[in-house]
């Protein structure tokens, strides 16, 4: 199972857990699994079945470029981080 690192301010939705194990071969599946366990969590991450524009997802240290279709491996580590712009 992949490990999802929960952003600090959302840990209230996971009972304080920082790292949560979840199944899924893509981000979409992963989020579906998370949603089943922590229904309040994913609303802040996903909107209309897409990752929110204000959020970037890092899978194994690489910013996802395929949105919800981004592949996730069983040993992947997934982080949700604020999207940012450069100058």
């Amino acid at each position, binding site marked *: 199972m992949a490990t999802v690192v929960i952003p600090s301010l959302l840990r209230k939705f996971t009972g304080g857990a920082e790292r949560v194990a979840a199944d899924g071969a893509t981000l979409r599946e992963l989020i579906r699994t998370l949603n089943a366990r922590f229904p309040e969590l994913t609303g802040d991450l996903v909107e209309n079945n897409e990752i929110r524009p204000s959020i970037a997802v890092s899978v194994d240290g690489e910013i996802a470029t395929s949105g919800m279709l981004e592949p996730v491996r069983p040993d992947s580590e997934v982080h949700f981080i604020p999207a*940012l712009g450069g*100058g």
Partner: protein
Amino acid sequence: MRRRQSGDTLVLIEAQLTASQRGLTMAETAASGNFKVIGTRPVRPDGVDKVTGRAKFGADYSFPGMLHGKVLRSPHAHALIKLIKIDKALALPGVKAIVTSADLPEAENKSEQAGEMAVNPRHLSANILARGKVLYDGHAIAAVAATSPHIAEEALRLIEVDYEILPPVMTVDAAMAPGAPILIADLRNKEEGDKPTNVATHYQFKRGDVEAGFKSADFIVEREFNTAMVHQGYIEPHNAVGIYNADGNATIYCSTQGIFDVRLLSSQVLGVEVGKIRVVPAEIGGGFGGKTTVYLEPLSVLLSKKTGAPVKLTMSRAEVLRATGPTSGSKIKIKMGATRDGRLVAAQIWMAYEAGAYPGSPVGAGAMTIVAPYTVENFLIDGYDVVVNRPKTAAYRAPGATNAAFASETVIDELAEKCGIDPLDFRIKNGVQEGSPQVVGPPYKRIGYLQTVEAIKNSPHYKSKLTGANRGRGVASGFWFNAGMQSSAIVNIHPDGTASVVTGSPDIGGSRASMAMIAAEVLGIPMTDVRPVVADTDSIGHTDVTAGSRVTFATGMAVYEAARDAARQLVERAAKAWEKKPEEVELRDGMLHTKGNGVPPVSIKQLAPRFPRTGGPIVGRASLNARGVGPAFACACVDVEVDPETGKVQILRATVAQDAGKAIHPSYVEGQMQGGTAQGIGWALNEEYFYDAKGILRNTGLLDYRMPTCLDLPAIDAIIVEVPNPGHPLGVRGVGEVSIVPPPAAIANAIYRATGVRMTETPMSPPKLLKAILRHRSSAANAKAAG
């Protein structure tokens, strides 16, 4: 003053590449350093146009029958618009049309992906023409098109606006205070529920146990920092020419960092399909992040639609300063602890950034960068994005990171001093390297942070002795993520064997040269045989902004792939002609060879005229959403002399080291490093937005918005460090941004050594520094008297 003639340059190369690059021919070349074109310093392909005045910047375009537009702007910082009367202005001879927000469709209040950032179309639209309320001095209210810019200006004086003036909210403290006037009625954040607020977003990053961390610290430094809002200061004001055709199609000529962003954002504001807008990139006179959004572009189309004529709008310098997108002023409270032996053990940081009139400050990036160069076991970082009655901020070179580093790199200097450790050694001791966790969690891949610090430590500058009264030397580091995102490229092989490389990345600092060099390297032809073209939105695949230090990285990757695609086709074509299998043919140094014996090699030049009879033109293509972004680090060393009677600071010497990954054109890499350093020095010493008590910007020109002149700066030595990025076929990292990050802290640290004063506020202008010096002296005198 030091009389050295020029910056010395040094290139440090770390040649070994990681395994992830195997299988890439070019990467093997990169590892061996055997490039023919990459790493040389050719003249840029657009150079002659730029030194002869032929290059066409946005304001240089004109069309038959063209009208001139001007924008009416709010003289108040915060007010309700009760009424706009335009009849007198419309009656002025020569005035052809006037538009207000009533001419724009209602835009949706939602968050939408646009290039790098999330954009709220309603906020974007209201920033372009205020809807019912003005939120800053200079907020656009109406736009006029007339037969001359002078008539348009006179017409603005005839537009009557009734305002109900509201109290201005100018600082994060004022905006976050209980009972503060609310700027945006429907703004909410998660934590305050349905309560109206000026705080758009709260970010938090946490690692370990910060309290326990501080308990284990031998030294703790706690300080509060304030940085002033500053502007990118590009020399070219914003401009746009809009041409709306009767068939519903529109063309925009403008100077922008992102043509596809202009297209998307204009379509959102105007309520027009993306496919009906074509954006043509003019040459662009600087941007530094400030030309990544739209202001005039939709207005030019709107006015053109209303008048049936092309309409040109250009901003005055005052408009640029009052009403484009400077970067946030900020307040940062920081507490950091270290053990006696110089190990950073804890950091607790509270930071609030001015977003300007609408949400979207770079506080998130600030929070993610503030301790990024260091392994800190325990931290808690809170960041707040706060709306205030100032212009909506835009990106500015490593947005958010410079404010943050001013605070953290000053405190780290102080901790190093308390530990009795050289400030560079302290940084090396705590510095991140491959495998160290980033603030957001994932480990760093291959990075060159320590190498930049070592480069400064070994530099002639740091090794030299600084002598003389009131002089001091300071160092500081900086981090920036860099960006990937989407890019496209086309490589055409011409009948004479030369090539063109087409991209959608406006060339803001010499990127045509690096694109041509990459294509030339892959094809094995001279760089002068490659003509780079920056195409319009209908002529090339989607390409994100020239920003985030991404062009050489991501568009460079697309060019590399497109050139390889062309090379593959050349090989196939030659194989076909020679009745060989493609794997029996290879392209080397611009020549097609067969493996083994048989056919004499043929050059691309010889093969190209035969394309029409061997299968048609050869066009290499690539489009990608780049992965493998490699972050950038910089370290700077600055010597200052302070006039203790006036508080004026003279920069005596400056050296910057930066990890470029691989420098494609070293001169332009140095140029980025020197330019970023110069902007950092300006930010540190004299640049600031100066608002009066009513929230009116007082310094609306370049006389009082004080950017450094060439008499204010010394030669800037640039040391290029090359620790190849394993995520790029050529090892490239972005180089455009990170050099702006260290200077303010480096200068504060130098001032401390010159005067004994720790500055916690930018700009460190003469009045502020003198005040601090006098306070420091009187407290020292009191202490002496008491002792």
